[in-house]
């Protein structure tokens, strides 16, 4: 007799029968009945009606039966909360049982019963179990705190369980430590701000000791927790790394990957000149390679992670190309991932081998794999210039195979090769044209049409070819239609005489017979262009296209850094930040790599202060989103960019607001032609043309004393990231008004018009007070300077860092996004001088923990000069004292949003280092105020 009989479906009236059996006097029969109930539950039958009868079986000394009843309880207690209370007594009694296994079982099960009423009864037994003499009970109780927190977080805090849990980190038993760490990490995730884990060198040391002693799973919990710690300097980072490296030899791949995560993260803090840095790099390669001998599912996880690691630190695996060669019996998911990594590792040194492999793969059986292999050959051509010729000839060989999908894939990549090496391989066009008829996939058709249009002048029968596509115009996908439209217009501009009829035909097809708005709009634009100014049309449509970049589908750097912090987890498998696939606020704390710091400098010193002077800061360029406008200019056939990472990265940058709604108002014309005059208070001149702003410059020249420091312009948006538009700029504050001085340079070959600007919500509500006005179109190589007045009445959202400003600039080509940091002193208002008494009172009133101290080094000025210079930037000296030969300046300033910052500046005559103490009710601004001091005093 075996247990499988319980799975056999029984007839009607089963519940009734079970009820009778459950209430039987015979123990054996009871147990049989409970087993049947559990089996029914497993296959999804509703057996909740038996609740009271099953609970009645709970009081038994048979542990097996007890566990089955508990299993039932966990499943159904929620639907029968009142009945569940019946079980409480037994639980409470079991928590006192002399047998530790039963005590633990009771507390473990009780935590799984998610009924509010039960949780109240749970507190007392749990408190006892957390201090139980038996480690088995303690380790179970530790996890139970996390369970209870999940049901009722407030209760856990009120009952002080968190502190008990923290104490368990110092427990003598390693497994208790590991479970406490796991529970605390989980609770901390839902309270991102709380300093629950409170990692400090002492607790880290405890964890590292426990690491050597606990189970493989415990080691994973601890390593994952360690990865959240930021060591205070490189020395500490190194010593932790040294103690973590032995884990790389663990048989459990998850332990290895978690150790790799800690090392990859802390390595960020080590100087590259350090010997240890090199040793560490060398130590990382072998375990990563060993992961590839694990079971296929783990290989997959490892490969997804290696993909990230080679993007972050290509040097680690650069000599290991061969281990990524595909094996015959690899599952397809492993094969595809290996292929990806092979391309990333391809270099001039190994390209011959890689190509030989790829060629082999292109003859395999699995269609997806073959396609990817063909595409990979194209990517190699683009990446390693020296191999381009060989890649092209390989692709031609593949086209000769006439295998339909191989040919199509090859044509798609050859198009990219043309983009990368213009005028080099066009001789192959003839071969491509031979295969025109076999193309049935939109992407391949579109690629082929692009090639025909682009090289229309070299293809004698280009018009015939395109005409043949035109026949079934309405059955084509949008991609092909758009491409066909553009290609025929190109053809017309190149050979106007013979193709007039053709172009008429396609324009009418696109504008009159199509209900696709994109197609229609593009058709109209071409039509108007061609009818009003054919020369301009030629310049626009046949404009020289920028080269495509070498590395395709790289993960955007900030996302990559974030994903490195998630090595081993699902995020690293999906290549998406957790916020993209985790619901709610759980576990979506944004993680970032630690900044590099050195131990020989104190953290207060200016050199180590993160985010230097605003002018030196490299602006982040947010990748462009939609390519709608670029589309028009036939740039739509850019290299294949992987969709999801881009989309998610912009979400994380907070650019959503810019995209949603806001942009529409930008593009909508009339409301920004006539700016509301009231919005431009004192700074009228700035919005006028250059003539007037010259005048204004004069006045500001006179008033230098009252104007605050202006940083030199820095490049915010490089031309290569914005289709030829370069934007540099700085921020100024003059007589009470803030403005953003921009310099727009057109480095593209086409004229730019229709400029508009918008800011994302930011910490101080900075917003343009008037629209961006560029009066004349910006012709190639022209530069225009504009001063954009700003106000601080925009919507407010706290940014990280505080002074981060995300900007969208639109022109006729596209919308571009960038972010920049503004110096805080542009927000210091003119009435920031505080009265002495007030100053004293406020200084005392602000709690001491809000005080921040900084060092300003190498500033040769004396107290008077400092005072007057700061005053011109609206930092006012309230009082001055001389204490033991040191000059003490007491200063105040006020921000646009009414926050007061009080400062004490200590200057020792003859010593170029000043000490600055800042006190403010919003301590997060201190760091930025200090930077403002630095900037003002040093320039």
């Amino acid at each position: 007799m075996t247990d499988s009989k319980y799975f056999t479906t029984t007839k009607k009236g089963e519940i009734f029968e079970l009820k009778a059996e459950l209430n039987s006097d015979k123990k054996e029969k009871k147990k049989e009945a409970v087993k049947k109930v559990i089996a029914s539950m497993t296959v999804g039958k509703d057996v909740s009606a038996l609740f009271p009868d099953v609970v009645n079986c709970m009081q038994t000394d048979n542990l097996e039966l007890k566990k089955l009843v508990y299993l039932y309880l966990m499943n159904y207690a929620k639907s029968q909360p009142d009945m569940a209370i019946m079980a409480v007594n037994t639980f409470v009694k079991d928590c006192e049982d002399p047998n530790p296994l039963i005590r633990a079982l009771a507390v473990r099960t009780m935590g799984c019963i998610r009924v509010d009423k039960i949780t109240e009864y749970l507190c007392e037994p749990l408190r006892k179990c957390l201090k139980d003499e038996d480690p088995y009970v303690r380790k179970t109780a530790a996890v139970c705190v996390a369970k209870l927190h999940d049901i009722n977080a407030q209760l856990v805090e009120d009952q002080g369980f968190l502190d008990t849990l923290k104490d368990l980190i110092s427990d003598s038993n390693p497994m208790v430590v590991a479970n406490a760490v796991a529970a605390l990490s989980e609770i901390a995730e839902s309270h991102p701000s709380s300093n629950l884990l409170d990692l400090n060198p002492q607790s880290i040391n405890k964890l590292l000791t426990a690491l050597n002693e606990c189970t493989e799973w415990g080691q994973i919990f601890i390593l994952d927790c360690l990865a959240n710690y930021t060591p205070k300097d490189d020395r500490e980072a190194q010593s932790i790394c040294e103690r973590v490296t032995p884990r790389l030899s663990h048989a459990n791949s998850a332990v290895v990957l978690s150790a790799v995560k800690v090392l990859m993260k802390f390595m960020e803090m080590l100087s590259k000149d350090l010997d240890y840095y090199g040793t560490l790099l060398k130590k990382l390669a072998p375990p990563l390679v060993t992961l590839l001998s694990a079971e296929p599912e783990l290989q997959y996880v490892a490969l997804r992670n290696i993909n990230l690691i080679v993007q972050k630190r290509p040097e680690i695996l650069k000599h290991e190309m061969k281990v990524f060669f595909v094996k015959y019996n690899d599952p397809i998911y492993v094969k595809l991932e290996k292929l990806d990594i092979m391309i990333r590792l391809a270099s001039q040194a190994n390209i011959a081998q890689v190509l030989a492999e790829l060629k082999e793969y292109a003859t395999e059986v699995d269609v997806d794999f073959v396609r990817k292999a063909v595409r990979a050959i194209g990517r190699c051509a683009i990446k390693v210039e020296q191999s381009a010729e060989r890649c092209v000839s390989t692709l031609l060989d593949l086209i000769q195979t006439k295998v339909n999908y191989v040919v199509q894939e090859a044509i798609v990549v050859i198009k990219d090769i043309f983009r990368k090496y213009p005028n080099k391989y066009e001789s192959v066009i003839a071969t491509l044209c031979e295969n025109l008829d076999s193309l049935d996939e939109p992407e391949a058709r579109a690629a082929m049409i692009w090639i025909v249009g682009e090289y229309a002048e070299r293809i004698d029968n280009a018009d015939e070819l395109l005409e043949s596509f035109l026949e079934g115009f309405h059955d084509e996908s949008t991609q092909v239609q758009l491409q066909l439209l553009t290609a025929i217009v190109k053809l017309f501009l190149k050979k106007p005489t013979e193709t007039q009829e053709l172009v008429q035909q396609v324009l009418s097809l696109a504008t009159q017979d199509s209900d696709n708005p994109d197609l229609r709009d593009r058709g109209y634009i071409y039509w108007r262009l061609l009818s009003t100014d054919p020369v301009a049309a030629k310049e626009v449509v046949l404009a020289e296209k920028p080269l495509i970049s070498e590395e395709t589908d790289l993960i955007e750097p900030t996302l990559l850094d974030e994903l490195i912090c998630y090595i081993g987890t699902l995020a690293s498998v999906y290549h998406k930040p957790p916020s993209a696939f985790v619901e709610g606020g759980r576990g979506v704390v944004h993680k970032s790599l630690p900044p590099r710091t050195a131990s020989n400098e104190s953290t207060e010193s200016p050199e180590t202060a993160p985010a230097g002077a605003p002018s030196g800061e490299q602006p982040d360029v947010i990748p462009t989103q939609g390519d709608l406008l670029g589309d028009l200019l036939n740039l739509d056939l850019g290299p294949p960019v992987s969709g999801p990472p881009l989309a998610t990265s912009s979400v994380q940058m907070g650019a959503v607001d810019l995209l949603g709604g806001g942009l529409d108002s930008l593009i909508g014309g009339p409301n920004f032609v006539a700016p509301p005059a009231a919005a431009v208070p004192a700074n009228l001149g700035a919005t006028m043309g250059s003539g007037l702003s010259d005048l204004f410059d004069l006045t500001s020249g006179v008033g230098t004393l009252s104007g605050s420091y202006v940083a030199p312009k820095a490049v915010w948006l490089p031309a290569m990231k914005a289709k030829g538009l370069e934007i540099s700029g700085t921020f100024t504050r003059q007589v009470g008004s803030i403005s953003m001085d921009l310099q727009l340079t057109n480095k593209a070959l086409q004229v730019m018009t229709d400029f508009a600007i918008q800011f994302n919500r930011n910490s101080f509500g900075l917003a343009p007070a008037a629209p961006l006005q560029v009066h004349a179109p910006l012709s190639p190589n022209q530069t225009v300077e504009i001063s954009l007045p700003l106000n601080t009445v925009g919507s407010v959202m706290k940014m990280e860092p505080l002074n981060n400003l995300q900007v969208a600039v639109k022109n006729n080509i596209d919308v571009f996004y960038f972010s920049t940091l503004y110096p805080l002193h542009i927000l210091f208002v003119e009435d920031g001088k505080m009265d002495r008494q007030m100053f004293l009172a406020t200084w005392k009133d602000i709690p001491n923990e809000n005080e921040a101290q900084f060092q300003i080094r190498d500033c040769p000025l004396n107290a008077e000069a400092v005072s007057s210079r700061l005053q011109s930037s609206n930092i006012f000296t309230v009082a001055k004292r001389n204490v033991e030969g040191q000059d003490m300046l007491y200063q105040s300033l006020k921000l646009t949003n009414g926050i007061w910052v009080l400062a004490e500046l200590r200057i020792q005559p003859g010593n170029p280092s000043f000490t600055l103490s800042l006190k403010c009710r919003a301590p997060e601004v201190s760091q930025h105020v200090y930077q403002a001091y630095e900037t003002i005093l040093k320039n």
Partner: protein
Amino acid sequence: MIGGLFIYNHKGEVLISRVYRDDIGRNAVDAFRVNVIHARQQVRSPVTNIARTSFFHVKRSNIWLAAVTKQNVNAAMVFEFLYKMCDVMAAYFGKISEENIKNNFVLIYELLDEILDFGYPQNSETGALKTFITQQGIKSQTKEEQSQITSQVTGQIGWRREGIKYRRNELFLDVLESVNLLMSPQGQVLSAHVSGRVVMKSYLSGMPECKFGMNDKIVIEKQGKGTADETSKSGKQSIAIDDCTFHQCVRLSKFDSERSISFIPPDGEFELMRYRTTKDIILPFRVIPLVREVGRTKLEVKVVIKSNFKPSLLAQKIEVRIPTPLNTSGVQVICMKGKAKYKASENAIVWKIKRMAGMKESQISAEIELLPTNDKKKWARPPISMNFEVWQKRSLDPWRVC
């Protein structure tokens, strides 16, 4: 962490379902069945995301094990856990099959309750589990026994229980090496590595402290010290190991600092370590296949094997598997040595040779009749595989047992 764990049969019927977290509902069970088990095409990834719920699965024969979560869990850990789960089940009731799972479902639930708490893996060493999760129901344990169990389950040596006694203390070490070789169609070796496993069978009493030393012939690349130049300078024939990993009983920090493998072994058989080496691999055999397609319905296959090792050594139990196309209708085999047979169920010709000395050569030729098919997909020509054993007397070289 893991929100739930389901086990299905090949039809997608759920055999075991255990939910640990509130965010996993009953519909998750069906979502996996519909989207993965019953999916039209072959599974393209062991991790599937369905409506913001992630499913990790592994398959053992025709049983599916799926772990479910809605959080950003440690993916490597989930898979390691699923493998471990399979090991534990196998240790309790043998092969993982539908029959065995149904027969032991109560036991499986009990195990799942113990080794996964709120989705966090707990001690999953069978040695320890077997002391208190038994199929005999509860034994009346004395207080000492109970505390011994709990201290073992949570303790530093969770893999071994105390008080083991053997009349004869014995220890066996097997070194199993597999040569992985990738060759181009032209016969050029693209990459080769040996992955070795050291399997230990320990029948020792008490809490034995074992220590293995490595002799100086072994150079571990990871150290960064033993570069190829240095080893060749030392003149000795060295064995370079690229990397090795150890069972969790081995004290890793000791290995890192002293190069010695010290541990208290679990009782019975376990895998002590794995290693990988890529240097100076001498292939013991060469297999030279020759496939000729005669028309559409006939295939001629000739395979030559050459043993490349010292003539004094002897390879035993050689088994060569030559895959055949799916539409094979009949096979005629002629071999000079050993026995060869076409196994239709495995789509392969299996050629067995009892023993073969070094530097010898043997061949097989076969004529394969094919059924004409409309299938345009060509035959993928899977690789020929080969198994054999070479016994060496110097069994403990290069490992020295202290």
